[in-house]
Protein backbone atom coordinates (compact mmCIF):
# COMPACT_ATOMS: atom_id res chain seq x y z
CA UNK A 1 0.00 0.00 0.00
CA UNK A 2 1.41 3.39 -0.99
CA UNK A 3 1.57 5.94 1.79
CA UNK A 4 -0.61 8.99 1.27
CA UNK A 5 -2.13 11.92 3.10
CA UNK A 6 -5.08 9.69 4.00
CA UNK A 7 -2.81 7.64 6.26
CA UNK A 8 -1.63 10.60 8.28
CA UNK A 9 -4.83 12.69 8.14
CA UNK A 10 -6.24 11.27 11.43
CA UNK A 11 -3.06 12.48 13.16
CA UNK A 12 -3.46 16.08 11.99
CA UNK A 13 -5.99 18.62 13.16
CA UNK A 14 -6.71 19.58 9.56
CA UNK A 15 -10.46 19.77 9.97
CA UNK A 16 -10.37 22.46 12.62
CA UNK A 17 -10.37 26.19 11.98
CA UNK A 18 -12.59 25.78 8.96
CA UNK A 19 -13.56 29.46 8.77
CA UNK A 20 -10.06 30.81 8.17
CA UNK A 21 -9.45 28.00 5.67
CA UNK A 22 -12.60 28.82 3.67
CA UNK A 23 -11.89 32.55 3.88
CA UNK A 24 -8.43 31.98 2.46
CA UNK A 25 -9.90 29.90 -0.40
CA UNK A 26 -12.46 32.66 -1.11
CA UNK A 27 -9.73 35.31 -0.92
CA UNK A 28 -7.57 33.41 -3.37
CA UNK A 29 -10.54 33.06 -5.73
CA UNK A 30 -11.44 36.76 -5.56
CA UNK A 31 -7.81 37.86 -5.96
CA UNK A 32 -7.20 35.62 -8.97
CA UNK A 33 -10.52 36.69 -10.54
CA UNK A 34 -9.58 40.35 -10.13
CA UNK A 35 -6.18 39.77 -11.65
CA UNK A 36 -7.39 37.71 -14.62
CA UNK A 37 -10.34 40.01 -15.44
CA UNK A 38 -8.07 43.02 -15.07
CA UNK A 39 -5.53 41.55 -17.48
CA UNK A 40 -8.23 40.56 -19.99
CA UNK A 41 -9.82 44.01 -19.77
CA UNK A 42 -6.43 45.62 -20.40
CA UNK A 43 -6.04 43.48 -23.51
CA UNK A 44 -9.59 44.35 -24.66
CA UNK A 45 -8.96 48.08 -24.27
CA UNK A 46 -5.66 47.84 -26.14
CA UNK A 47 -7.39 46.04 -28.98
CA UNK A 48 -10.10 48.70 -29.12
CA UNK A 49 -7.60 51.57 -29.06
CA UNK A 50 -5.28 49.94 -31.59
CA UNK A 51 -7.97 49.98 -34.22
CA UNK A 52 -8.59 53.69 -33.69
CA UNK A 53 -5.04 54.64 -34.67
CA UNK A 54 -4.23 56.01 -38.12
CA UNK A 55 -1.44 53.58 -38.70
CA UNK A 56 0.31 52.89 -41.96
CA UNK A 57 2.62 49.95 -42.68
CA UNK A 58 2.39 49.15 -38.98
CA UNK A 59 3.88 52.52 -37.99
CA UNK A 60 2.61 55.84 -36.74
CA UNK A 61 4.15 59.01 -38.15
CA UNK A 62 3.75 62.13 -36.05
CA UNK A 63 5.34 65.54 -36.16
CA UNK A 64 6.54 67.39 -33.10
CA UNK A 65 7.50 71.02 -32.51
CA UNK A 66 8.94 72.79 -29.53
CA UNK A 67 6.21 74.31 -27.40
CA UNK A 68 6.12 78.03 -28.04
CA UNK A 69 5.00 80.04 -25.04
CA UNK A 70 4.98 83.75 -24.18
CA UNK A 71 8.18 83.18 -22.24
CA UNK A 72 10.24 81.48 -24.90
CA UNK A 73 8.78 83.06 -28.03
CA UNK A 74 11.69 85.45 -28.35
CA UNK A 75 14.15 82.58 -28.56
CA UNK A 76 14.88 80.26 -31.45
CA UNK A 77 12.59 77.32 -30.80
CA UNK A 78 13.93 75.04 -33.48
CA UNK A 79 15.55 71.63 -33.19
CA UNK A 80 19.32 71.58 -33.66
CA UNK A 81 21.30 68.46 -34.62
CA UNK A 82 21.92 67.53 -30.97
CA UNK A 83 18.16 67.62 -30.26
CA UNK A 84 17.46 65.43 -33.28
CA UNK A 85 20.18 62.94 -32.38
CA UNK A 86 18.81 62.66 -28.86
CA UNK A 87 15.29 62.08 -30.19
CA UNK A 88 16.59 59.44 -32.62
CA UNK A 89 18.28 57.57 -29.79
CA UNK A 90 15.06 57.00 -27.83
CA UNK A 91 14.25 53.27 -27.67
CA UNK A 92 10.51 53.68 -28.26
CA UNK A 93 11.12 55.46 -31.60
CA UNK A 94 11.99 53.67 -34.80
CA UNK A 95 13.26 56.77 -36.59
CA UNK A 96 13.12 60.55 -36.60
CA UNK A 97 13.84 63.10 -39.31
CA UNK A 98 13.77 66.90 -39.42
CA UNK A 99 11.58 68.92 -41.75
CA UNK A 100 13.93 71.47 -43.34
CA UNK A 101 12.30 74.74 -44.30
CA UNK A 102 13.36 77.25 -46.92
CA UNK A 103 15.65 80.02 -45.68
CA UNK A 104 14.76 82.42 -48.50
CA UNK A 105 11.53 84.11 -49.56
CA UNK A 106 9.28 82.11 -51.86
CA UNK A 107 6.25 83.36 -53.71
CA UNK A 108 3.92 81.11 -55.65
CA UNK A 109 1.57 81.98 -58.48
CA UNK A 110 -0.40 79.95 -60.95
CA UNK A 111 0.70 81.93 -63.95
CA UNK A 112 -2.08 82.95 -66.30
CA UNK A 113 -4.38 80.04 -65.55
CA UNK A 114 -5.44 81.12 -62.04
CA UNK A 115 -5.28 84.69 -60.84
CA UNK A 116 -3.63 83.60 -57.65
CA UNK A 117 -0.45 84.56 -55.92
CA UNK A 118 0.82 84.00 -52.37
CA UNK A 119 3.88 83.95 -50.23
CA UNK A 120 4.68 80.36 -49.50
CA UNK A 121 6.92 78.12 -47.48
CA UNK A 122 8.58 74.94 -48.65
CA UNK A 123 9.92 72.05 -46.68
CA UNK A 124 11.84 68.88 -47.36
CA UNK A 125 11.76 65.60 -45.52
CA UNK A 126 13.48 62.27 -45.86
CA UNK A 127 11.47 60.23 -48.37
CA UNK A 128 11.11 57.32 -45.92
CA UNK A 129 8.67 59.46 -43.96
CA UNK A 130 6.44 60.44 -46.87
CA UNK A 131 3.41 58.26 -47.57
CA UNK A 132 3.14 59.01 -51.30
CA UNK A 133 6.41 59.33 -53.18
CA UNK A 134 5.99 59.07 -56.96
CA UNK A 135 9.14 58.15 -58.96
CA UNK A 136 9.30 61.63 -60.47
CA UNK A 137 9.85 63.22 -57.02
CA UNK A 138 13.48 63.96 -57.91
CA UNK A 139 15.50 67.00 -58.79
CA UNK A 140 18.90 67.60 -60.32
CA UNK A 141 20.98 70.73 -60.09
CA UNK A 142 20.24 72.98 -63.03
CA UNK A 143 16.74 71.59 -63.46
CA UNK A 144 14.07 74.30 -63.46
CA UNK A 145 11.16 71.95 -62.86
CA UNK A 146 10.55 71.20 -59.20
CA UNK A 147 8.18 68.41 -58.17
CA UNK A 148 5.99 69.12 -55.15
CA UNK A 149 4.03 66.93 -52.74
CA UNK A 150 1.13 68.89 -51.39
CA UNK A 151 -0.76 68.36 -48.15
CA UNK A 152 -4.32 67.16 -48.62
CA UNK A 153 -5.29 69.43 -45.70
CA UNK A 154 -3.98 72.47 -47.60
CA UNK A 155 -5.94 71.41 -50.67
CA UNK A 156 -9.03 71.18 -48.51
CA UNK A 157 -8.38 74.67 -47.12
CA UNK A 158 -7.88 76.04 -50.66
CA UNK A 159 -11.17 74.51 -51.73
CA UNK A 160 -12.86 76.24 -48.79
CA UNK A 161 -11.80 79.76 -49.70
CA UNK A 162 -11.55 79.35 -53.51
CA UNK A 163 -15.25 79.96 -54.30
CA UNK A 164 -15.30 83.23 -52.35
CA UNK A 165 -12.25 84.45 -54.33
CA UNK A 166 -13.77 83.41 -57.68
CA UNK A 167 -11.21 80.66 -57.98
CA UNK A 168 -12.07 77.14 -59.21
CA UNK A 169 -12.16 74.30 -56.71
CA UNK A 170 -9.66 71.57 -57.45
CA UNK A 171 -9.64 67.81 -57.08
CA UNK A 172 -6.54 65.81 -56.12
CA UNK A 173 -6.17 64.78 -59.75
CA UNK A 174 -6.77 68.19 -61.32
CA UNK A 175 -4.29 69.97 -59.05
CA UNK A 176 -1.49 68.17 -60.88
CA UNK A 177 -2.36 70.06 -64.04
CA UNK A 178 -2.05 73.48 -62.40
CA UNK A 179 1.36 74.94 -63.23
CA UNK A 180 2.84 76.73 -60.26
CA UNK A 181 5.58 79.25 -60.59
CA UNK A 182 7.91 79.50 -57.64
CA UNK A 183 9.64 82.81 -57.30
CA UNK A 184 12.65 82.37 -55.08
CA UNK A 185 14.15 85.61 -53.86
CA UNK A 186 17.74 86.05 -52.86
CA UNK A 187 20.14 88.90 -52.29
CA UNK A 188 19.88 90.96 -55.38
CA UNK A 189 17.65 88.77 -57.45
CA UNK A 190 14.91 86.26 -58.03
CA UNK A 191 15.03 82.85 -59.61
CA UNK A 192 11.90 81.24 -60.98
CA UNK A 193 11.13 77.55 -60.99
CA UNK A 194 8.28 75.68 -62.59
CA UNK A 195 6.70 73.58 -59.89
CA UNK A 196 4.24 70.78 -60.39
CA UNK A 197 2.16 69.10 -57.72
CA UNK A 198 2.78 65.43 -58.37
CA UNK A 199 1.15 63.94 -55.27
CA UNK A 200 -1.06 64.76 -52.34
CA UNK A 201 -0.12 63.57 -48.86
CA UNK A 202 -2.49 62.72 -46.06
CA UNK A 203 0.32 62.37 -43.59
CA UNK A 204 2.51 65.43 -44.01
CA UNK A 205 0.99 68.85 -43.44
CA UNK A 206 3.39 70.73 -45.65
CA UNK A 207 4.51 71.59 -49.16
CA UNK A 208 7.35 69.22 -49.82
CA UNK A 209 10.14 69.53 -52.33
CA UNK A 210 12.97 67.02 -52.89
CA UNK A 211 15.62 67.13 -50.18
CA UNK A 212 18.51 67.89 -52.54
CA UNK A 213 16.59 70.85 -54.03
CA UNK A 214 16.10 72.33 -50.57
CA UNK A 215 19.76 71.83 -49.65
CA UNK A 216 20.89 73.40 -52.91
CA UNK A 217 18.43 76.31 -52.68
CA UNK A 218 19.24 77.14 -49.05
CA UNK A 219 22.94 77.09 -49.83
CA UNK A 220 22.81 78.90 -53.16
CA UNK A 221 20.07 81.40 -52.50
CA UNK A 222 20.37 82.03 -48.75
CA UNK A 223 23.93 80.82 -48.15
CA UNK A 224 22.79 78.63 -45.23
CA UNK A 225 23.98 75.04 -44.91
CA UNK A 226 23.09 73.90 -41.42
CA UNK A 227 19.41 74.64 -41.06
CA UNK A 228 17.73 73.98 -37.73
CA UNK A 229 14.32 72.30 -38.06
CA UNK A 230 11.05 73.69 -36.76
CA UNK A 231 9.46 70.29 -36.92
CA UNK A 232 10.68 66.74 -36.50
CA UNK A 233 8.84 63.73 -37.82
CA UNK A 234 8.76 60.65 -35.62
CA UNK A 235 8.28 57.09 -36.77
CA UNK A 236 7.02 54.77 -34.06
CA UNK A 237 5.18 51.48 -33.73
CA UNK A 238 2.79 53.07 -31.27
CA UNK A 239 2.05 56.77 -31.06
CA UNK A 240 0.09 56.00 -27.91
CA UNK A 241 3.05 54.52 -26.12
CA UNK A 242 2.95 56.04 -22.62
CA UNK A 243 6.77 56.15 -22.56
CA UNK A 244 6.78 58.30 -25.70
CA UNK A 245 4.11 60.61 -24.27
CA UNK A 246 6.01 61.03 -21.00
CA UNK A 247 9.21 61.77 -22.94
CA UNK A 248 7.51 64.44 -25.05
CA UNK A 249 5.90 65.93 -21.98
CA UNK A 250 9.20 65.98 -20.13
CA UNK A 251 10.99 67.69 -23.05
CA UNK A 252 8.04 70.08 -23.53
CA UNK A 253 7.63 69.04 -27.16
CA UNK A 254 4.26 69.69 -28.74
CA UNK A 255 2.36 67.03 -30.61
CA UNK A 256 -0.93 66.75 -32.41
CA UNK A 257 -3.21 65.86 -29.48
CA UNK A 258 -5.70 64.12 -31.72
CA UNK A 259 -3.08 61.58 -32.78
CA UNK A 260 -2.30 60.63 -29.23
CA UNK A 261 -5.60 61.07 -27.46
CA UNK A 262 -5.94 57.30 -27.16
CA UNK A 263 -2.46 57.27 -25.72
CA UNK A 264 -3.67 59.53 -22.94
CA UNK A 265 -6.71 57.32 -22.39
CA UNK A 266 -4.30 54.40 -22.36
CA UNK A 267 -2.11 56.15 -19.80
CA UNK A 268 -5.09 56.66 -17.50
CA UNK A 269 -6.37 53.15 -18.08
CA UNK A 270 -2.94 51.75 -17.49
CA UNK A 271 -2.88 53.44 -14.09
CA UNK A 272 -6.35 52.09 -13.27
CA UNK A 273 -5.45 48.61 -14.51
CA UNK A 274 -2.14 48.65 -12.62
CA UNK A 275 -3.97 49.76 -9.48
CA UNK A 276 -6.53 46.99 -9.87
CA UNK A 277 -3.85 44.40 -10.60
CA UNK A 278 -1.99 45.58 -7.50
CA UNK A 279 -5.19 45.20 -5.50
CA UNK A 280 -5.68 41.70 -6.94
CA UNK A 281 -2.13 40.72 -5.98
CA UNK A 282 -2.71 42.18 -2.50
CA UNK A 283 -5.88 40.11 -2.06
CA UNK A 284 -4.01 36.98 -3.19
CA UNK A 285 -1.20 37.76 -0.75
CA UNK A 286 -3.66 38.29 2.09
CA UNK A 287 -5.34 34.99 1.22
CA UNK A 288 -1.97 33.24 1.28
CA UNK A 289 -1.14 34.84 4.63
CA UNK A 290 -4.51 33.74 6.02
CA UNK A 291 -3.85 30.25 4.71
CA UNK A 292 -0.41 30.26 6.28
CA UNK A 293 -2.07 31.12 9.62
CA UNK A 294 -4.36 28.16 9.15
CA UNK A 295 -1.36 25.93 8.37
CA UNK A 296 0.59 27.25 11.36
CA UNK A 297 -2.37 26.64 13.62
CA UNK A 298 -2.94 23.16 12.22
CA UNK A 299 0.72 22.26 12.61
CA UNK A 300 0.89 23.81 16.10
CA UNK A 301 -2.16 21.83 17.19
CA UNK A 302 -0.76 18.65 15.65
CA UNK A 303 2.78 19.33 16.83
CA UNK A 304 3.00 16.38 19.24
CA UNK A 305 1.62 13.96 16.69
CA UNK A 306 3.87 15.28 13.93
CA UNK A 307 6.92 15.04 16.19
CA UNK A 308 5.97 11.47 17.02
CA UNK A 309 5.58 10.65 13.31
CA UNK A 310 9.09 11.99 12.75
CA UNK A 311 10.35 9.92 15.70
CA UNK A 312 8.75 6.80 14.25
CA UNK A 313 10.63 7.28 10.98
CA UNK A 314 8.44 9.52 8.82
CA UNK A 315 10.75 11.96 7.07
CA UNK A 316 10.03 15.69 7.21
CA UNK A 317 10.60 15.81 3.44
CA UNK A 318 7.90 13.20 2.79
CA UNK A 319 5.54 14.82 5.29
CA UNK A 320 5.99 18.26 3.67
CA UNK A 321 5.33 16.91 0.18
CA UNK A 322 2.34 14.87 1.30
CA UNK A 323 0.71 17.60 3.38
CA UNK A 324 1.35 20.20 0.63
CA UNK A 325 0.00 17.86 -2.09
CA UNK A 326 -3.27 17.67 -0.18
CA UNK A 327 -4.02 21.26 -1.35
CA UNK A 328 -3.08 20.86 -5.01
CA UNK A 329 -6.64 19.80 -6.00
CA UNK A 330 -8.07 22.67 -3.93
CA UNK A 331 -5.88 25.26 -5.67
CA UNK A 332 -6.54 23.66 -9.05
CA UNK A 333 -10.32 23.78 -8.51
CA UNK A 334 -10.23 27.41 -7.33
CA UNK A 335 -8.05 28.70 -10.18
CA UNK A 336 -9.81 26.61 -12.85
CA UNK A 337 -13.23 27.83 -11.65
CA UNK A 338 -12.01 31.42 -11.76
CA UNK A 339 -10.62 30.86 -15.26
CA UNK A 340 -13.97 29.46 -16.43
CA UNK A 341 -15.71 32.47 -14.87
CA UNK A 342 -13.29 34.82 -16.68
CA UNK A 343 -14.06 33.05 -19.98
CA UNK A 344 -17.79 33.51 -19.30
CA UNK A 345 -17.39 37.19 -18.34
CA UNK A 346 -15.30 37.90 -21.45
CA UNK A 347 -17.95 36.28 -23.63
CA UNK A 348 -20.68 38.36 -21.93
CA UNK A 349 -18.59 41.55 -22.27
CA UNK A 350 -17.96 40.98 -25.98
CA UNK A 351 -21.51 39.85 -26.67
CA UNK A 352 -23.63 42.18 -24.56
CA UNK A 353 -21.48 45.25 -23.86
CA UNK A 354 -19.58 45.47 -27.17
CA UNK A 355 -22.41 43.98 -29.27
CA UNK A 356 -20.10 41.40 -30.87
CA UNK A 357 -17.57 43.97 -32.13
CA UNK A 358 -14.94 42.23 -34.18
CA UNK A 359 -11.95 44.09 -32.77
CA UNK A 360 -12.33 42.22 -29.47
CA UNK A 361 -12.29 38.45 -29.32
CA UNK A 362 -15.01 36.68 -27.32
CA UNK A 363 -12.28 34.31 -26.09
CA UNK A 364 -9.81 35.16 -23.39
CA UNK A 365 -6.26 35.97 -24.43
CA UNK A 366 -3.53 33.35 -24.15
CA UNK A 367 -1.67 35.54 -21.67
CA UNK A 368 -4.62 35.08 -19.26
CA UNK A 369 -4.20 31.30 -19.56
CA UNK A 370 -0.48 31.67 -18.94
CA UNK A 371 -1.02 33.94 -15.91
CA UNK A 372 -3.55 31.56 -14.36
CA UNK A 373 -1.23 28.58 -14.92
CA UNK A 374 1.61 30.60 -13.39
CA UNK A 375 -0.59 31.51 -10.41
CA UNK A 376 -1.48 27.85 -9.90
CA UNK A 377 2.17 26.79 -9.96
CA UNK A 378 3.10 29.71 -7.70
CA UNK A 379 0.36 28.87 -5.15
CA UNK A 380 1.50 25.24 -5.04
CA UNK A 381 5.16 26.19 -4.60
CA UNK A 382 4.42 28.81 -1.91
CA UNK A 383 2.18 26.37 -0.05
CA UNK A 384 4.82 23.62 -0.24
CA UNK A 385 7.53 25.95 1.03
CA UNK A 386 5.31 27.14 3.91
CA UNK A 387 4.52 23.57 5.00
CA UNK A 388 8.15 22.51 4.63
CA UNK A 389 9.40 25.46 6.68
CA UNK A 390 6.91 24.73 9.45
CA UNK A 391 7.64 20.99 9.53
CA UNK A 392 11.43 21.34 9.51
CA UNK A 393 11.10 23.72 12.46
CA UNK A 394 9.52 20.98 14.61
Amino acid at each position, binding site marked *: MKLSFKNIEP*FLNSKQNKISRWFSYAGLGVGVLLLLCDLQMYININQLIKNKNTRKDGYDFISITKNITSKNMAKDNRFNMADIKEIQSQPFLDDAAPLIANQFRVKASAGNILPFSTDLFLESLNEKFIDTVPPEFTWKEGQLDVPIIFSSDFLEMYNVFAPSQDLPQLSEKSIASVPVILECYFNGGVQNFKARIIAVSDRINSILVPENFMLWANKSLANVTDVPASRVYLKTKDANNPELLSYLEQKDYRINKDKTKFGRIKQILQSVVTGLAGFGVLVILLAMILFSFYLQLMIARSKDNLQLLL*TLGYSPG*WLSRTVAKRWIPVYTIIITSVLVLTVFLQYCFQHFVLNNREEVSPLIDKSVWIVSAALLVLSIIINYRMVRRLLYKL
Partner: protein
Amino acid sequence: MQHIHLNNVTPTFLEQEKIANSQIWNKEVVFNAGEKIQIVAPSGSGKTSLIHFLYGLRKDYSGTILYDKKSVSGFNADKFSTYRKKILSVVFQDLRLFAEQTVEENLSIKRILQPYHSTDKIDEMAEKLGIANKLNNTAKTCSYGEQQRIAIIRSLQQPFTFLILDEPFSHLDENNRKIAMQLIEEEALERNASIILADLKPIEYFNADRTLYL
Protein backbone atom coordinates in the same frame (compact mmCIF):
# COMPACT_ATOMS: atom_id res chain seq x y z
CA MET B 1 24.25 -1.45 9.26
CA GLN B 2 26.55 -3.76 11.22
CA HIS B 3 27.86 -1.65 14.09
CA ILE B 4 27.00 1.22 16.35
CA HIS B 5 30.22 2.71 17.60
CA LEU B 6 30.33 4.94 20.70
CA ASN B 7 33.57 6.88 20.71
CA ASN B 8 34.06 8.53 24.14
CA VAL B 9 30.44 9.58 24.31
CA THR B 10 29.74 11.61 27.43
CA PRO B 11 26.55 13.51 28.28
CA THR B 12 27.32 17.17 28.81
CA PHE B 13 25.14 17.30 31.91
CA LEU B 14 26.29 14.20 33.88
CA GLU B 15 28.44 14.28 37.04
CA GLN B 16 32.12 13.24 36.62
CA GLU B 17 31.80 10.50 39.23
CA LYS B 18 29.05 8.73 37.31
CA ILE B 19 31.02 9.00 34.09
CA ALA B 20 34.16 7.58 35.72
CA ASN B 21 32.32 4.52 37.03
CA SER B 22 30.50 3.80 33.79
CA GLN B 23 31.42 1.06 31.29
CA ILE B 24 29.89 3.08 28.47
CA TRP B 25 30.34 6.82 29.10
CA ASN B 26 33.63 8.17 27.83
CA LYS B 27 34.67 4.71 26.61
CA GLU B 28 35.09 3.01 23.24
CA VAL B 29 32.03 0.78 22.91
CA VAL B 30 30.84 -1.11 19.85
CA PHE B 31 27.41 -2.74 19.50
CA ASN B 32 27.39 -5.39 16.77
CA ALA B 33 24.45 -6.62 14.74
CA GLY B 34 23.07 -9.91 16.12
CA GLU B 35 24.47 -9.25 19.58
CA LYS B 36 22.23 -9.19 22.67
CA ILE B 37 23.36 -6.47 25.02
CA GLN B 38 22.00 -5.72 28.43
CA ILE B 39 22.66 -2.28 29.86
CA VAL B 40 22.13 -2.04 33.57
CA ALA B 41 21.62 1.49 34.67
CA PRO B 42 20.51 2.75 38.04
CA SER B 43 18.20 5.71 38.12
CA GLY B 44 19.93 8.97 37.15
CA SER B 45 22.84 7.35 35.34
CA GLY B 46 21.69 8.65 31.94
CA LYS B 47 19.98 5.54 30.62
CA THR B 48 17.21 7.29 28.73
CA SER B 49 19.72 9.85 27.45
CA LEU B 50 21.84 7.01 26.03
CA ILE B 51 18.78 5.55 24.25
CA HIS B 52 17.98 8.98 22.80
CA PHE B 53 21.60 9.48 21.72
CA LEU B 54 21.65 6.09 20.00
CA TYR B 55 18.34 6.78 18.24
CA GLY B 56 19.41 10.29 17.19
CA LEU B 57 16.87 12.26 19.18
CA ARG B 58 19.37 14.31 21.19
CA LYS B 59 22.82 15.71 20.62
CA ASP B 60 23.77 17.06 24.06
CA TYR B 61 26.88 14.91 24.39
CA SER B 62 30.56 15.07 23.58
CA GLY B 63 32.36 12.34 21.64
CA THR B 64 30.97 10.68 18.53
CA ILE B 65 28.41 8.04 17.67
CA LEU B 66 29.01 6.22 14.41
CA TYR B 67 26.50 4.14 12.46
CA ASP B 68 29.05 1.81 10.82
CA LYS B 69 31.67 4.43 9.93
CA LYS B 70 29.34 7.39 9.53
CA SER B 71 29.18 9.96 12.28
CA VAL B 72 25.57 10.79 13.12
CA SER B 73 26.50 14.37 13.96
CA GLY B 74 26.15 15.26 10.27
CA PHE B 75 22.79 13.53 9.82
CA ASN B 76 19.69 15.62 9.19
CA ALA B 77 16.12 14.64 10.04
CA ASP B 78 15.55 13.03 6.62
CA LYS B 79 18.68 10.89 6.98
CA PHE B 80 17.65 9.68 10.46
CA SER B 81 14.22 8.78 9.14
CA THR B 82 15.74 6.28 6.68
CA TYR B 83 17.51 4.54 9.60
CA ARG B 84 14.37 4.60 11.75
CA LYS B 85 12.37 3.00 8.95
CA LYS B 86 14.63 0.04 8.25
CA ILE B 87 17.50 -0.29 10.71
CA LEU B 88 16.70 1.10 14.13
CA SER B 89 13.59 0.28 16.12
CA VAL B 90 12.83 1.49 19.59
CA VAL B 91 10.60 1.16 22.66
CA PHE B 92 10.77 4.36 24.68
CA GLN B 93 10.44 4.43 28.41
CA ASP B 94 7.66 7.01 28.00
CA LEU B 95 6.15 4.84 25.22
CA ARG B 96 5.16 7.73 22.93
CA LEU B 97 1.83 6.55 21.61
CA PHE B 98 -0.80 8.62 19.84
CA ALA B 99 -3.14 9.07 22.80
CA GLU B 100 -6.24 10.04 20.79
CA GLN B 101 -5.86 7.26 18.22
CA THR B 102 -6.96 3.66 18.58
CA VAL B 103 -4.50 0.85 19.31
CA GLU B 104 -5.08 -0.38 15.76
CA GLU B 105 -4.21 3.07 14.33
CA ASN B 106 -1.12 3.31 16.57
CA LEU B 107 0.14 0.04 15.17
CA SER B 108 -0.76 0.56 11.53
CA ILE B 109 0.80 4.04 11.27
CA LYS B 110 4.15 2.40 11.99
CA ARG B 111 3.54 -0.78 9.97
CA ILE B 112 2.59 0.97 6.71
CA LEU B 113 5.79 3.03 6.80
CA GLN B 114 7.93 -0.04 6.12
CA PRO B 115 5.82 -3.21 6.35
CA TYR B 116 7.67 -6.32 7.58
CA HIS B 117 4.84 -8.43 8.96
CA SER B 118 1.35 -9.07 7.66
CA THR B 119 -1.62 -7.76 9.64
CA ASP B 120 -2.40 -11.36 10.63
CA LYS B 121 1.00 -11.63 12.25
CA ILE B 122 0.36 -8.37 14.13
CA ASP B 123 -3.00 -9.70 15.34
CA GLU B 124 -1.19 -12.83 16.46
CA MET B 125 1.33 -10.77 18.46
CA ALA B 126 -1.51 -8.75 20.02
CA GLU B 127 -3.20 -12.01 20.96
CA LYS B 128 0.05 -13.35 22.46
CA LEU B 129 0.57 -10.21 24.56
CA GLY B 130 -3.08 -10.07 25.62
CA ILE B 131 -4.18 -6.85 23.97
CA ALA B 132 -6.18 -8.27 21.04
CA ASN B 133 -9.42 -7.09 22.63
CA LYS B 134 -8.05 -3.53 22.93
CA LEU B 135 -7.36 -2.89 19.25
CA ASN B 136 -10.37 -0.60 18.80
CA ASN B 137 -9.86 1.31 22.04
CA THR B 138 -8.09 4.64 22.06
CA ALA B 139 -4.56 4.39 23.43
CA LYS B 140 -5.27 6.80 26.28
CA THR B 141 -7.96 4.46 27.69
CA CYS B 142 -5.47 1.57 27.94
CA SER B 143 -3.56 0.90 31.15
CA TYR B 144 0.16 1.71 31.24
CA GLY B 145 0.96 -2.01 31.03
CA GLU B 146 -1.24 -2.36 27.94
CA GLN B 147 0.34 0.71 26.39
CA GLN B 148 3.77 -0.84 27.01
CA ARG B 149 2.73 -3.96 25.12
CA ILE B 150 1.36 -1.82 22.25
CA ALA B 151 4.74 -0.03 22.06
CA ILE B 152 6.56 -3.39 22.00
CA ILE B 153 4.39 -4.71 19.14
CA ARG B 154 4.81 -1.41 17.30
CA SER B 155 8.59 -1.78 17.46
CA LEU B 156 8.48 -5.33 16.10
CA GLN B 157 6.52 -4.54 12.91
CA GLN B 158 9.38 -3.11 10.89
CA PRO B 159 12.67 -4.45 9.57
CA PHE B 160 15.54 -3.63 11.95
CA THR B 161 19.16 -4.45 12.70
CA PHE B 162 19.19 -2.85 16.15
CA LEU B 163 16.26 -2.97 18.55
CA ILE B 164 16.70 -0.46 21.35
CA LEU B 165 14.57 -1.00 24.46
CA ASP B 166 14.29 1.41 27.41
CA GLU B 167 12.73 -0.30 30.45
CA PRO B 168 10.26 -2.09 28.18
CA PHE B 169 8.70 -4.26 30.89
CA SER B 170 8.50 -1.80 33.78
CA HIS B 171 4.68 -2.07 34.03
CA LEU B 172 4.24 -5.72 33.06
CA ASP B 173 3.58 -8.64 35.32
CA GLU B 174 6.04 -11.53 35.45
CA ASN B 175 4.11 -13.68 32.98
CA ASN B 176 3.72 -10.92 30.38
CA ARG B 177 7.38 -9.94 30.80
CA LYS B 178 8.49 -13.45 29.86
CA ILE B 179 6.10 -13.66 26.89
CA ALA B 180 7.19 -10.22 25.66
CA MET B 181 10.89 -11.05 26.10
CA GLN B 182 10.48 -14.32 24.22
CA LEU B 183 8.64 -12.55 21.38
CA ILE B 184 11.33 -9.87 21.16
CA GLU B 185 14.13 -12.45 21.04
CA GLU B 186 12.34 -14.47 18.35
CA GLU B 187 11.83 -11.36 16.21
CA ALA B 188 15.46 -10.27 16.63
CA LEU B 189 16.72 -13.75 15.78
CA GLU B 190 14.57 -13.83 12.65
CA ARG B 191 16.26 -10.60 11.47
CA ASN B 192 19.70 -11.49 12.87
CA ALA B 193 19.37 -8.21 14.74
CA SER B 194 20.90 -6.86 17.89
CA ILE B 195 18.90 -6.16 21.06
CA ILE B 196 20.11 -3.31 23.24
CA LEU B 197 18.03 -3.51 26.40
CA ALA B 198 18.48 -0.93 29.11
CA ASP B 199 16.90 -1.45 32.53
CA LEU B 200 17.38 -0.59 36.17
CA LYS B 201 18.59 -4.09 37.05
CA PRO B 202 19.56 -7.25 35.15
CA ILE B 203 16.66 -9.21 33.64
CA GLU B 204 17.25 -12.89 34.32
CA TYR B 205 15.18 -14.23 31.44
CA PHE B 206 17.06 -12.13 28.85
CA ASN B 207 19.82 -14.24 27.32
CA ALA B 208 22.26 -11.38 26.94
CA ASP B 209 25.66 -11.91 25.30
CA ARG B 210 27.09 -8.95 27.20
CA THR B 211 26.05 -6.89 30.17
CA LEU B 212 27.37 -3.37 30.50
CA TYR B 213 26.96 -1.16 33.55
CA LEU B 214 26.20 2.45 32.83
